[in-house]
């Protein structure tokens, strides 16, 4: 159920959707779909998105990750934040065509988590939370961008291989250029992921928040697997200087694992420091008694 307070996010999604349609449309019909519309609707969406997060934060007096829905919304914000900065630095041509639809799809998915039952244990200390969450989120954002770049790479390589020289072929940059950017985003995200995981490890060790058998938590196990897959990617690039389609496919696999780690684990029954609202209330009642 969409509550009234989430209207801004719905507006954000609509703006992202417009941006997606225009960013794809401007490739096929550049005279009908203006690229500026795509850019400005995205920026406007991002602006409202930011405002919405501030509102959520003020409401709960915490960083807006107090439930699955909020953390999803924050992650999407991180993706766009990183993208806008990278685009400003590196001028990524046509990446929006590949990234904004992903962002839009994730946003719509996020909306389905609104009103979910899992809430964060509010007594969690703030320092560790920020040190654990922020690097991981920014890292995930970088991986999402590298995922979009991989799709772009595979599209361009397919077009070159099968000699399909349509309007998209002309708009996309060179394989080598995409490959370099992919490498840059992964090598930007990986240290952050590592940092976030290390802080998380310290956190569970010192505060014992995940219980004795913390290493059996799905999120911990899969987080490690994600770390390993990107470590393997970096190794292939750095040590064996590997390029091409294999790297692109592996990057896509890496992103799927990121998504699964982030969201899929909740379907598997992992709570990872979140608690069911009902349990929490039950505990509170017990405490009062």
């Amino acid at each position, binding site marked *: 159920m969409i509550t009234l307070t989430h209207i801004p996010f719905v507006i954000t999604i609509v703006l992202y959707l417009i941006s997606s349609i225009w960013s794809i449309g401007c490739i096929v019909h550049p005279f009908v779909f203006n690229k500026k519309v795509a850019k400005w609707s995205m920026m406007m969406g991002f602006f409202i998105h930011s405002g919405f997060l501030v509102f959520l934060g003020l409401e709960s007096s915490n960083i807006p990750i107090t439930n699955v829905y909020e953390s999803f919304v924050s992650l999407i914000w991180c993706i766009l934040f990183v993208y806008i900065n990278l685009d400003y630095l590196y001028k990524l041509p046509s990446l929006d065509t590949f990234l904004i639809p992903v962002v839009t799809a994730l946003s719509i998915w996020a909306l389905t988590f609104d009103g979910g039952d899992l809430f964060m244990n509010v007594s969690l200390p703030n320092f560790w939370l920020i040190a654990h969450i922020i690097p991981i989120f920014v890292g995930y954002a970088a991986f999402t961008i590298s995922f979009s770049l991989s799709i772009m790479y595979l599209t361009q390589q397919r077009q070159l291989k099968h000699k399909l020289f349509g309007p998209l072929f002309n708009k996309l940059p060179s394989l*080598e250029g995409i490959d*370099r950017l992919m490498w840059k985003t992964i090598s930007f995200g990986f240290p952050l992921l590592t940092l976030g995981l290390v802080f998380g490890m310290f956190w569970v060790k010192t505060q014992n928040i995940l219980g004795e058998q913390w290493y059996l938590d799905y999120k911990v196990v899969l987080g490690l697997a994600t770390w390993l897959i990107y470590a393997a990617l970096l190794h292939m690039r750095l040590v064996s200087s590997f390029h091409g389609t294999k790297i692109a496919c592996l990057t896509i696999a890496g992103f799927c694992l990121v998504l699964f780690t982030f969201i899929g684990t909740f379907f598997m029954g992992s709570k990872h420091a979140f608690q069911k609202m009902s349990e929490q209330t039950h505990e509170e009642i017990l405490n009062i008694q």
Partner: protein
Amino acid sequence: MSILVVGLNHKSAPVEVREKLAFNANNMSAALSQFLHRYQTAETVILSTCNRVEMYVSSLEGTLTVEDILSFFADFHKIALNDFSPYMYHYKDDRAVNHLFFVTASLDSMVLGESQILSQVKEAYTTATMEESTGKVMNQLFQQALNVAKIVHTQTSIGKRKVSISSVAVEFAEKIFQDFTGKMVLVVGAGEMCELLLKHLYEEGARTIVVANRTFERAQEIANAFQGQAIKYELLGEYLAKADIIISSTSAPHYVIHADQVKEAIRHRRGNPMFLMDIAVPRDIEPEVAKIDNVYLYNIDDLQSVVSQNVDERTREVEKCRTIVDEEVEHFMARLEEMKIEPAITLLRNHFHAIGKEELDRLKPKLKNIANGDWEQVVYTVERTINKLLHNPAKVAKQEAKNGGGYRYVEIIKKLFGIFHHTDPSQQ
């Protein structure tokens, strides 16, 4: 005032005729000054490229004919009129303007949409201005032509797609590699096409060039032209893995590069992409190569089919360009009409101010004691009255001129106020 173009191009005349009429950098100035010497009131620009020779002339109505210009060509180049006049075309006024706009926008070129003609027109115009053979009309005309060409090129995709095999090939290479610095280009065989491709790649920044050919001397010849390195043909296999771009055009009747060789090469390259162009017939590179991951193989047909697609694309754009050109011709002709009436309006103004001055001169002695300041006020009032009286007629006349009635208005103004051109004393 009329505009005339007389000339020939690749469609109307064979090269034997075109070369006889062509002007070059050495005799262009002489031609322009000779023409001006002969027809002093005319303005002219001569456009001479390898595909066309055209002379654009503007003169007072009826003073210059096509025959005059033809005979100028004959006299200047010292050839008989009959030798070239059957190949010549000529257009007048709006059709002449249309022709120039069409030519400048590269819609009349041999390769539709090529951009070279734009700079050639610019150069022809600059030369003419330096020789002072242009005036108000030619300046307006050529500046507008260059402007129209820019509009056509930005608003349509007439010049966007590449239409030569070598430029298409380089475009593909650019979709694989970000830049060519540090990339090795391996040339196998030494055909003319190879050289052309190499030239394009070299212009785009490729500097590591290796040439392998059956006859080592020929390989050396090409390598030297591009500061490259010639290798013995037998060493080809060794260089395969190092090469990013391979161009093959040997005359061998069998495959020269085999799939397992390329497979081995790509393994060594750890997935670094390879771009192979097989421009030989019969083919040099085994077609199976195309199936190998990270290898991109194109043969002459692939390149040719893209070229013809792009040519079709350009041809489809011509209609759009024609509409733009037609619109711009209309604008220009309206401006020209407006320009025609300007001298008449100046005459009218001078005439009125002369009358005003005459009357003021008559008045001044009568007002002996008038203060200087007061007299200035009187002069100011008279001039202001004249300007106010003339403001609307001038505006309306210009407006009407735009719609093509300029000439009629000039006549009416002259008749109504009894004013005549100072070069036309017979009517006074």
